[in-house]
């Protein structure tokens, strides 16, 4: 992917942004400044990127810190604190930094801040965000540095997007980020009352000086109310206590659509739901049995009745969000060949599989799941389909999330006889959909390959793809890897997800849903993507 290309979508968005610019002027609260009240579904637990394991914290500092580059709504890398990335050789990238940028504490942004921001990840819980690829950085002058990678790394630019830049003082110990985040972003930290609210205020001297979007964000104050209970969040939105709610429960979306005061915004997300097979336990050790079960997953029914028609059937791991790496026709082909709901074909496969194994049906087993309502409901539909054949007698077992994930990742779930219902969220790089789930060395308990799927060819393809910079070549490698995985059927893919937000139509103008959860508030003000949000009406 050549760095910093523009796209047709970007231009269209620019036109859209221009049309709402007129509204921004008349927005304003009683105290003279405009305020947007949004929500967080959990409390913010840290302001420090090197400690942030939860999406909530990452969302909350997303407008405060900025990375060198950002990833826009369709996965394109955009210059942010860097103005150019020039590849010197396979392992070296020269980064030119933006001039005239300062942190919220008044200090100037220089190459030393970048190097320190990377290196302070060492020995922290999020070490792998950086040290998976970072070897060293050489500062050439205040606004130029060379980053050396430990080996060629194709997702380098995307990975930079996940590393927020903090002042060097945070690395030397002169600045304590646990008192509040200090970045270069369009909003500065104001207050955080635990479990109650988290508030940001507009940074008046943000570096942006173009004319695609207003030079300063139209919204002066961003207040995030912390509302854990989803039903209460929906009630608060309908009652007018908040302007913007995220991820309303699937069964409540229809009500929100019917409400004239509310706009529902959605975007295909990066992730899928799946049914993992325990590969070491007969009858799931047999490929035909696995394909048979996969062909009994009623994906269209599930999307219709469980998810209210939102989302799309998954026939391969990589989400259509990454349209460089997957295509409608590829998904259709995989579906036809290995996965589409087909009870007759399933019966033949199960018959063949069970005879080959000498397992006498009905085979008594369980589908284990956590208590997420939507997940339990699709697992029930799968159970009903399986029990309608003479081959299975399936029941469902639910666990509280941390107990459940502990069990799935324990390292021997592939030997138990239970199928596991799970969701996986990927990011902007195709590797994020494949490596952790299907690479042999990522087998539990090392990481998340709970099926204990191991295929040398898939391992080789994933390794090669990770060091291949050329998009076309990379795409071919991922297609081959996906074909192998889908044919081996270590899991039955169910559904690609959708992110949903709902907002009060009269209070919010220009908001867009970002495909990944951690970037939820990107659209509030993202000059690098030509996008911003204003408070409406006025």
């Amino acid at each position: 992917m050549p760095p910093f290309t523009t796209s047709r979508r970007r231009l269209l968005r620019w036109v859209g942004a221009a049309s709402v610019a007129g509204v921004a002027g008349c927005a304003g609260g009683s105290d003279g400044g405009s305020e947007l009240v949004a929500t967080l579904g959990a409390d913010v637990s840290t302001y420090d990127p090197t400690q942030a394991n939860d999406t909530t914290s990452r969302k909350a500092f997303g407008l405060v810190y900025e990375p060198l580059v950002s990833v826009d709504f369709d996965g394109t890398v955009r210059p942010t604190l860097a103005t150019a990335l020039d590849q010197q050789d396979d392992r070296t990238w020269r980064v030119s930094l933006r001039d005239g940028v300062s942190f919220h504490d008044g200090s100037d942004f220089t190459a030393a801040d970048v190097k320190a921001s990377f290196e302070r990840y060492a020995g922290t819980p999020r070490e792998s965000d950086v040290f998976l690829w970072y070897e060293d950085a050489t500062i050439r002058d205040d606004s130029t540095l060379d980053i050396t990678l430990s080996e060629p790394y194709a997702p380098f630019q995307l990975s930079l997007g996940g590393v927020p830049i903090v002042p060097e003082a945070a690395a030397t110990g002169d600045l304590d980020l646990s008192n509040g985040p200090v970045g270069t972003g369009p909003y500065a930290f104001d207050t955080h009352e635990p479990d109650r609210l988290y508030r940001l205020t507009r940074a008046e001297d943000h570096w942006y000086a173009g004319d695609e979007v207003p030079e300063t964000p139209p919204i002066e104050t961003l207040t995030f109310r912390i509302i854990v209970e989803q039903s209460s969040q929906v009630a608060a939105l309908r009652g007018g206590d908040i302007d913007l709610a995220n991820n309303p429960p699937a069964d409540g979306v229809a009500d929100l659509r019917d409400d004239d005061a509310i706009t529902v915004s959605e975007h295909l997300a990066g992730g899928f739901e799946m049914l993992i097979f325990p590969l070491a336990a007969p009858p799931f050790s047999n490929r035909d049995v696995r394909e048979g079960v996969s062909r009994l997953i009623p994906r269209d029914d599930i999307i219709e009745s469980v998810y209210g028609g939102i989302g799309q059937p998954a026939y391969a791991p990589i989400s259509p969000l990454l349209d460089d790496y997957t295509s409608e026709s590829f998904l259709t082909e995989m579906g036809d060949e290995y996965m589409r709901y087909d009870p007759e074909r399933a019966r033949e496969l199960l018959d063949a599989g069970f005879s080959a194994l000498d397992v006498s049906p009905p085979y008594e087993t369980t589908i284990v799941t956590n208590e997420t309502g939507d997940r339990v409901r699709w697992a029930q539909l799968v159970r009903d389909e399986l029990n309608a054949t003479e081959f299975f007698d399936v029941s469902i077992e639910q666990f509280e999330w941390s107990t459940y994930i502990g069990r799935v990742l324990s390292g021997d779930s592939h030997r138990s006889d239970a199928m596991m219902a799970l969701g996986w969220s990927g990011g902007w790089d195709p590797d994020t959909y494949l490596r952790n789930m299907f690479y042999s060395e990522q087998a539990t308990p090392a990481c998340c390959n709970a099926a204990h799927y191991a295929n040398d060819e898939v391992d080789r393809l994933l390794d090669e793809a990770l060091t291949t910079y050329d998009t076309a070549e990379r795409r071919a490698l991922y297609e081959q890897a996906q074909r192998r995985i889908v044919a081996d059927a270590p899991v039955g893919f169910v559904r690609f997800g959708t992110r949903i937000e709902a907002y009060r139509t009269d209070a919010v103008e220009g908001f867009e849903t970002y495909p990944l959860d951690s970037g939820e508030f990107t659209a509030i003000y993202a000059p690098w993507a030509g996008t911003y949000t204003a408070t409406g009406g006025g």
Partner: protein
Amino acid sequence: MSLRRYVLRRTLLTLPILLGVSVLTFGLVKLLPGTPVDYVLQFQEATPELRASLRAQYHLDEPVWKQYLLWLNDVLHLDFGDRVVSDRSVGAAIAERLPETLVLGGISFLIALLVGVPAGVVAAVRRGTLVDEGSRVVALVGIATPNFWLGLLLILVFGVHLNLVPVIPPVAPVFAPESLVFLVLPAVTLGTASAALFTRLTRSAVTEQLRQEYVRAARAKGLDERTVIVKHVLRNSLISVVTVAAVQVAFLLDGAVVVERVFSWPGLGRLLVRAILQRDFPVVQAVVLLVATAVVVANLLADIVYAWLDPRITY
């Protein structure tokens, strides 16, 4: 035995109970699957050195009995350690939320007593009338309604449809008028079951007392009915109400876990639930210990109030 000696003895007796509570609190948390290290690392790959240093940080490399003694020693010095999920101290996190939970619990408790006890007295005095039957039905419904559901229902009716009160807490100090207005719904939600229980309990206690000889004597003496009920009957009936009231303190704290979530009220209940899910052991241990201590103290107070209510009780 004098009242003073009784109070002293009763107070000393709570010490072994509290010690037992501390063992249970510590032990139960240890029985939960997963450790703080799992939360910190999110099941990611980590070098053995990082893992070991994290284990050492939480004393997980020591034998369990030693972990307990280390913890108990800290607790006795009122040092609850640092949180797993952030570098803030557990004591500060609790201090931040304690006022919220106390105010919510206090208002709920007042509502429960001020509604429950008079309703029970009226029902007993008008035994067999429509008033009595009505209070019985209302009380049964009150006891049977899950507070989670009641809370959402009240939010929908008063917050969304009638739009009379905010659905989420106002940005204001806990004692500000708008906060107290907001607290009406959560307090009603939390107090309803207790109010219903007090109603039934008071009714049966008062009914029983009304059959006693002393009531006939008092009436024969020419005392007016109000004096008979309030001064004699109610005082004697309250003993069982006080016993149950002490136990209700536990129920109110327990119910707060749910009600605080529904009403987004930043109290101890939410801190506790989140800490359990995140294996934030220092917080779980501290909050559970605090709640258990509150219940033990409430029972102690109940025992002392008996002695005040009924001087005939000797020990």
